[in-house]
């Protein structure tokens, strides 16, 4: 499947129709999910603000998905030397950063009514997302600060993989730390137990976000591939 993308031409011809299709699917899923979500009864304790969940949680999920994609693409580029992989990686980073930022912003917008504060260091999910954001920013900054395309690719790949290994460790450590001294359990508000009325639209919007991300990713990768072609760069800089 991935090896199919190794060949730029096959990737371009595939993504030409794949991207728009995914975009349509995303639109449909999001429309349905949001409609269900908004028509659902207000939560007995969270009130109307519960609806933020439908934009917030999927954003957070998609942000994580985005880093997985970034890591996967980097791996393919570093190990299998797939021609398109590096372009895909560099295309995924800004998207991931955007979704992460969205999760952070909607999250703290949610936090204000829920916890009476914009931010709570006690909640591991918040912190992990913030760290995820830092990883994205670091990747983008490093890549932007290297002018030699080939070298930039290599360095960025290494950083992405290191981050991929660390991400779960970081999330674990934060969770573990917060459970160790079990303060702030209030912050777990709305945790795992969610009524179906909310769960179904949440799942729908979640799927919708993912589809949207995929569509954007393909499009950006196409743009990147075209840019490099126009620069006359060997897609895989001389290795």
């Amino acid at each position, binding site marked *: 499947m991935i090896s199919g993308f190794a060949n730029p031409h096959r990737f371009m011809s595939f993504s030409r129709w794949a991207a728009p299709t995914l975009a349509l699917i995303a639109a449909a899923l999001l429309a349905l999910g949001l409609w269900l979500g908004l028509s659902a009864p207000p939560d007995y304790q969270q009130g109307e603000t519960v609806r933020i969940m439908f934009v917030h949680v999927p954003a957070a999920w998609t942000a994580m998905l985005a880093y997985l994609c970034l890591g996967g693409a980097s791996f393919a580029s570093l190990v299998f030397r797939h021609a398109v992989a590096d372009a895909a990686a560099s295309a995924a980073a800004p998207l991931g950063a955007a979704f992460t930022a969205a999760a952070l912003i909607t999250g703290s917008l949610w936090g204000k009514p829920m916890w009476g504060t914009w931010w709570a260091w006690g909640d591991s999910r918040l912190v992990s997302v913030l760290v995820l954001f830092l990883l994205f920013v670091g990747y983008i900054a490093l890549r932007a600060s290297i002018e*030699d*395309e*080939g070298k930039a690719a290599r360095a960025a790949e290494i950083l992405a993989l290191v981050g991929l290994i660390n991400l779960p460790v970081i999330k674990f450590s934060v969770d573990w730390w917060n459970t160790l001294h079990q303060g702030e359990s209030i912050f777990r508000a709305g945790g795992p137990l969610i009524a179906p009325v909310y769960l179904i639209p949440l799942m729908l919007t979640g799927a919708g976000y993912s589809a949207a991300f995929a569509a954007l990713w393909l499009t950006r990768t196409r743009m990147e591939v075209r840019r490099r072609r126009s*620069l*006359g*760069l*060997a897609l895989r*800089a*001389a*290795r």
Partner: protein
Amino acid sequence: MIAGITLEAVALVRGGRTLFEGLNARVGSGRALTVTGPNGAGKTSLLRAIAGLVRLASGRIAFEGSADPAEARRFHSHLVGHQDGLKSARTANDELLFQARWCGATRQAALAAAERLGLAPHLALDVRRLSAGQKRRLALARLLAAPRALWLLDEALAPLDAGGRALMGEIMAEHVAAGGLIIAAAHDPLPIAADTLDLGR
């Protein structure tokens, strides 16, 4: 040991630009090769490619007399480049001993090399205080201290005075006579007899 080096259809690309392609050459033991060419022709890049620091765009570099090229590069070749790789904050003596020992030489060998290159009076100084020529002599000392078959010299003689160049001529002649190989990038002719590989475009 390295009995000879063969470049087969070597091509180098730097930053998307092709420097040269289809380059063929052979250096046997006991021979010296001068790589000439205008600034930017790719002399440094070629030497670094032979040393394994720069990746070839295509073609291959074969080391005769040693199964594994990595091992030939690690243990049987010296590269002295535009930069001396000396730490200005350390004494000449420290740097001499490090470079020599790192290449497997003994302390005695290192000091003997410095002696022959006329560095003895300056070994106590910080590298930062050495003159350009003195620095280069320091960098060249490891050639003498740690005998290795292949010498890759990238304009290594430029900062040397007349005496220094004559001396290096002697030293290179001895090395070649002992069956060594020399590949030297240079703008002025080498002080010893050598074949020429011109990268001029």
